[in-house]
């Protein structure tokens, strides 16, 4: 892996968070592979989001429903405006197989979400499983390990 490649991978993870923070949801969705998914398990050891309860597990189709709702302007729950901020540590490249076109990055971060007089703070580690497609690297799966997925949480309306 060249330093150019490693820079490209870490930039993708940073950009992914920034697009959510900027509300550029369509661009954010385009970062996912066609069979890409976004998963927030309830336990670190969980393996199968189809058979184990999870806070969130969405494929491109469901993510596009989520994005459609966020952008259509019909959701009263999003008024007043909901904003978020991902404060990331430097993403660490855990594995990278350039021949196979796969990589895994791990990023520690703090997620802030605010609406009116309320703010939610979540600590998390994101695992990005990236795959290289014809038009560049895409997100095969984003897994978010919240620090407290077992706690009773208030509603979290954007994407931690």
């Amino acid at each position, binding site marked *: 892996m060249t330093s150019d490649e490693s820079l490209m991978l870490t930039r993708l993870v940073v950009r992914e968070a920034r697009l959510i923070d900027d509300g550029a949801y369509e661009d954010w969705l385009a970062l996912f592979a066609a069979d890409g998914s976004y998963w927030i398990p309830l336990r670190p050891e969980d393996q199968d989001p189809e*058979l184990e309860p999870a806070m969130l597990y969405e494929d491109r189709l*469901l993510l*596009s429903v989520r994005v459609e*709702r966020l952008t259509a302007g*019909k959701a009263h729950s999003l008024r007043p405006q909901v904003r978020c901020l991902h404060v990331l540590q430097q993403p660490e490249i855990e594995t990278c197989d350039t021949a196979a076109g796969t990589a895994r990055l791990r990023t520690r971060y703090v997620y802030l979400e605010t609406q009116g007089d309320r703010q939610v703070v979540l600590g998390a580690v994101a695992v990005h499983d990236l795959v290289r497609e014809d038009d560049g690297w895409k997100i095969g799966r984003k897994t978010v390990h919240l620090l407290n997925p077992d706690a009773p949480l*208030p509603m979290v309306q954007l994407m931690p």
Partner: protein
Amino acid sequence: MSGFYRADAARLAALVQPDRVHRDVYIDEEVFDLEMERLWARSWLYVGHASQVPAAGDYLTTTLAGQPVFLMRQPGGELGVFFNRCAHKGAQLLLDERGNAGKLLRCPYHAWNYKLDGSLLSLPLKNDYEGSGVWESPAGKGLAKPGGVREYRGLVFARLSPDGPAFEDYFAGVLEILDLIADRSPSGELEVVGPPLRSEMSCNWKMYLENVNDSVHPISTHESAAHAAKTVGDGLSGAEQEMAMEQLLPFGAGYSFYTKMGARVTAHGHSIHGTKFSLHSGYAAIPGYQDMLREAHGEARAHEVLSFSPQNTVLYPSLALKASPALLRVLQPLAAGRTRLEVWALAPRGAPEALRRQAVNYTRLVFSPTSIVAHDDIRLFESVQRSLHAGGNEWISLHRGYRGEAEPALPHEVEDGNDELLMRNQFRAWRDALAQPAPEVV
């Protein structure tokens, strides 16, 4: 103002009128304390599921009406529920959410040891207690227990208070729902698929439970989710319409759909919403499942079980459940304006994996803190909780379907699924429970 309601039974009773309730039922902390003492403590509350504690010493800890308890499988196989409080100084005995206690419970504070049945086994410096009277005091009696415990088809309920209705009387008219759900398994056994999804909301617990029976809200409240699902779904072929879309799209159903689905209300505030059909009746059949149930339960029972799929059943005041997808919603009130919710998926043992998949998917899609459906509900509950402080109108309307009639004999079949009689019936139970002061604690 302490005693404003406690000392004035007429004022307390007047909070519930036949067609409306006063805002203090939701926002007043003294009323909240009274409902914990008089309603929750005397009701049969959902504790947990037998499948969570299969072996001797297995336990789970939880909270009933704000009181810490644990459910523990006894060496003889029976289930015990105990207050999670050392008889000595009150330290919490079991600290984890679940686990196995081994052969005894040891308090981390002063090493008082208890048998799994809650009796005091040993304590340090025993000679120092000679003649102290400790053995005759509550401390010497071991762990305190709720007034009653009952398991029914795997669901474990407890009544905190020694006084209150018997289990069968309390749930008369709705217990068969638990049979219908359990019989979705060929062996008649359910298991919970943990862990639960947990939420905390800044609203009163009753708002949540009324909303479970409110079929008039989805078309407006969930417009954004239904619209987004339809926009995306319209571009798909039938084959691409996956289970998630099958579960999301019906949130756009209109008023007339719910009008026809019918309901039943029973004594103590319980209800079955969607006795004739529901949003869940339209889910695609699972291959082989029907035959499996026919073989296990016979043709008639299999038909009964599979055709029964109400929108929601409320076992007032702590539990709401669905048969298909099979799931439990457990309420834990913390304060007048704070409520916790646990949502558990259920899987019928021996049934196709698709049922587990369906339940897991639904809990995540509709009840998770990140659910696009739940957001619109919770946002409204929380805004109502705040807005009720507005002056000018101190009442919440429950008029829909009310025509000045007397309260019906229970159980009662409700023709129109949109009738607010389902909420009025909850408040009828609430009012009756709050009218009876709790017995003096000795």
